């Protein structure tokens, strides 16, 4: 299978209601280790993820994968900040992306069940998705994202507003996915989580990349004052 990475953003810009909310951004995201997008509220993290994934339209500039766009689309998944679940049973939710890709019902069910097992939701497979708890919903969304064995998985604050235990379980799921060869590109508000998972950090402010580099370097000593303040937990505008 061909690698869809690296993803190259060149002068990528997103506008909403006429004003720029992201960019221009020049960046290459390569394989290996998780890319963690950090920054204060409203910095443009979500917009950044959506632009990379291709669901936020670029006003100008480009965002290119190593392969054709139509090919690249097949090898990436996106987990939204608040999980979007189909009004179906848990298993049917995970089967859905497979059925879109033309899998037979039984193949889709087998693979979906194994994806659910990986996130510890196999027992809940016949429940209605909307009856799950917050943490379970997020795990379900992750299982559905992983069932297509994506090369790249985008996650927008996957553990925001979850309790400690759900947080740990989700991190474990993500680490396992990474081990299986999935590149994580995610945002988080949780600096502890960022330190635990990140290999590469992109620090955004006002829609622009303020600082970027390996996570060890970034967390050891951010070059910019804003990033230093952010890491200290100060309010950064």
């Amino acid at each position, binding site marked *: 299978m061909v690698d869809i990475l690296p993803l190259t953003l060149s002068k990528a810009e997103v506008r909403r209601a006429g004003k720029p909310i992201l960019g221009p951004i020049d960046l290459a995201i390569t394989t290996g280790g998780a890319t963690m997008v950090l920054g204060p509220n409203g910095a443009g993290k979500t917009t950044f993820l959506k632009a990379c*994934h291709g*669901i936020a339209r670029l006003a100008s500039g480009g965002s290119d994968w190593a392969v054709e766009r139509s090919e690249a689309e097949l090898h990436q998944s*996106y987990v939204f900040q608040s999980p*979007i679940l*189909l009004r179906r049973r848990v298993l049917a939710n995970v089967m859905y992306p497979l059925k*879109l890709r033309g899998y037979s019902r039984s193949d889709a069910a087998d693979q979906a069940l194994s994806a659910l097992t990986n996130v510890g939701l196999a027992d809940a497979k016949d429940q209605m998705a909307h009856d799950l708890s917050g943490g379970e919903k997020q795990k379900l969304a992750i299982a559905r994202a992983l069932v297509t064995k994506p090369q790249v998985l985008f996650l927008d604050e996957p553990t925001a507003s979850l309790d400690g235990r759900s947080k740990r379980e989700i991190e474990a799921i993500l680490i396992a996915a990474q081990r299986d060869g999935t590149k994580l590109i995610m945002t988080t508000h949780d600096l502890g989580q960022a330190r635990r998972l990140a290999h590469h950090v992109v620090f955004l402010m006002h829609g622009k990349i303020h600082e970027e580099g390996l996570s060890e370097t970034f967390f050891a000593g951010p070059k910019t004052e804003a990033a230093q303040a952010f890491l200290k937990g100060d309010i950064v505008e």
Partner: protein
Amino acid sequence: MSEFWEGISSAFWLIITLDADLVDITIRSLQVTVTAVVIGAALGIPLAAWLTVNRFRYRRTTVAILNALMGLPPVVVGLIVYLLLSRSGPFGVFGLLFTPTAMIIAQVIIVTPLIASVAHQALRDLWADYHDLLISLNTTRWQRIKTLAWDARRSLLTATLAGFGRAIGEIGAIMIVGGNIDHVTRVLTTAIALETSKGNFALALGLGFILIGMAIAINIAIHWVSGTERRGRW
């Protein structure tokens, strides 16, 4: 009040003796309304789905028109269909006036906007919910329509039932285009009007109870068939 009880007992006797005229009228009511609602749903639901997943210039206008058409006065629909189907009208050659087909045509015009509008509201809400996910999963337009229609199936059934409810109790249009001909175009509502005009309130009320009972029975039956009630909430 005595008329009320007479109505109830007259309805009771008509039903348990399976009165031939009553059966004939009831079956015709169902024939006309079920056909009209099936056609109305076959037109209205795809239209609603199409309006939901497509962005085009006059979409808002189209939706507004649809909502306005939902309030079409049946009498006006009847009059227009009458003028169109009359021998002196543009479609006169087909000789459809005063036939069940004419009644179905009028009812399709009445229920389609209603079904489409109610279905559109449901599909639009679901689409707002699913939008980002379905875009992220690279769904085709057709896959989006199928997904929305399936997951909103209960609301679509409700929309269809709303259409049924409107059509089965409708009289203004079918009286004009059907002519209330005995054994040909007489249905429950027109029979009720006729009996009322003869001052036969008991019989009219009896037919009315049957109409109401039938509407309720069909609602229950469809819910039962779809099994959605047993499966619980989402």
